[in-house]
């Protein structure tokens, strides 16, 4: 990351050939990221692991929820959901970078964004499990721990999988709420 920041400072973006290569690098990086993700998606679908997965999701305090709710899903659905959010992230960053580059004429993000998505794709939990065939245990045990993020540690808890909280949440009758 730091290296690419330094590199991006050295580069002369006024030069059309440099700009062209930077653009090419960015597009290749993005396409490579998407390819990794979609190939993993293909792997998930072909494996079709339908064993069930239960966990208790902490309440989303931002949305004003107070009760934690149980999620019952399959390994396949869970993986696809995780992967989808990663793919969504790629598209969001493409939109952001596109705006910065095409509208505000910044070229620095292109350099950064041609490397970091590939890196985060290769570090993605799901990709690690499917592409690198790592065993789904330890840090890679589903459900994954939430990595704090922007508001890390601010009253946020990871999903719970202990038997007691699952039992409690499972028959709580939380469904069928009309949302209008």
């Amino acid at each position, binding site marked *: 990351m730091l290296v690419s920041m330094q590199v991006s400072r050295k580069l002369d973006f006024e030069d059309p050939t440099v700009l062209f290569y930077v653009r090419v690098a960015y597009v290749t990086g993005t396409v490579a990221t998407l390819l990794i993700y979609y190939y993993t998606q293909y792997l998930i679908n072909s494996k079709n692991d*339908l064993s*069930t997965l239960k966990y208790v999701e902490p309440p989303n305090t931002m949305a004003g929820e107070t009760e934690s709710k149980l*999620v019952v899903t399959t390994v396949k*659905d869970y993986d696809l*959901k995780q992967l989808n959010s990663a793919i969504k992230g790629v598209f969001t960053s493409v939109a952001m970078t596109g705006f910065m580059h095409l509208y505000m004429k910044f070229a620095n993000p292109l350099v950064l964004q041609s490397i970091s998505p590939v890196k985060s794709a290769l570090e993605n939990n799901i990709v690690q499990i499917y592409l690198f065939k790592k065993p789904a245990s330890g840090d890679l045990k589903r459900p994954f721990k939430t990595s704090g993020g922007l508001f890390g540690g601010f009253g946020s808890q990871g999903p719970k999988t202990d038997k007691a909280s699952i039992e409690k949440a499972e*028959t709580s*009758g*939380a469904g*069928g709420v*009309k949302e209008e």
Partner: protein
Amino acid sequence: MLSLPVLLLASVAFAADVSDVASDAASVTSSAVAATSTSTIQQLANLPFWQRLASYPWQLEIVSLSFMAVYIVFFYIGSKYNQRLVNRFMDSILPTLKDNFFQVGVTTTRLLAQDDHQHYTLYASGRLRVESLIARFELQSRQNPFVWIMELVTSQFFDSIDKPEDKVTFEFKIDADGSAQYDDFVWGIVTKDNMNKYRKDNYYLSLTKTSESGKLPAEFVFMNEVPEMNEVLFTKKLPNLLEKSKNLLQLIAITDQPIDKPEKISQLRPTKRIILQLRVPKSKEEVVAAQELLSYVLNEFIDFVVKRGVFRPELTRKCKKTRENEYSKLKRSIEDAAKEEANARKLEQEKDRRAKLSPEEQEKLTKRQSERRQRRAMNRQKVRT
């Protein structure tokens, strides 16, 4: 010069309703004429009628008319496709329904009630132990390609928006006589795809436990209150039927609890139902599989459940407990809401009373209240020390 307002109006015309387009087009004609200078108006007036037509730029009319034509064609194709989907399935299950029910159809002459081009409802009644059957078809909005594409795209990006699908829900309401013969419980088989969604959408399923079983095809799970009930209710014919309709069946459930979360105590009263939810079958094999499943439910399963759905008290105790819990939870939340409302009303009244007082009296009141608050705080501190 003219292209900008024309473009703007064209975009308005796109957004506007079909009926508005014509009037918009008319206003463009007038504004176009008004915008040109008087000399050109004179020139235009001097031209013969057909030459005037030829000199007018017709792009907007062409674009909006072709747009409308495309829209109408899509509407026609989409709604016809939806109708065909429903009709094909109905044709296959009609004999079974006619065998079982005295009256099939919303009226004596009409089979289906069409709510719009994606919602159809079937009603049947007049069978032993079944008070009524209501089947609701919910199809994709193929008749409106814009909404359809929008739904498809947004469902990819937002979890809260469901992916459009063609589904049909059969709701067999058991009559009073049949209901009295078997216990209150919730028992169901649900497909694993999106099973969390079914638990979220259906109140009765969120009272159950989800469990995998070797007896079921890998695509399904049990959602039941008491696992021991599987031995009775999971009949020998079910595995084969499930295997055949594994891409179709979304859920089959026996329930006494409502689909929507109850908000009044009266809604907690058990109303026994058997619910069968399917994806609308498309191919020939799927139609056959769906028909087989439905006729099994109608010809055997309902009567079987009514006859054999009586369990040892040890098993039903758990179900009773859940219902009592839900009752007390609901009662508490209703009471809380009432209390909150009473408090709010009191506060409002207090405010009104104060507003009527003169300024001096208001001040006195505030002073007295703040004194009282201070005294109370002091007392509390004393207690603590």
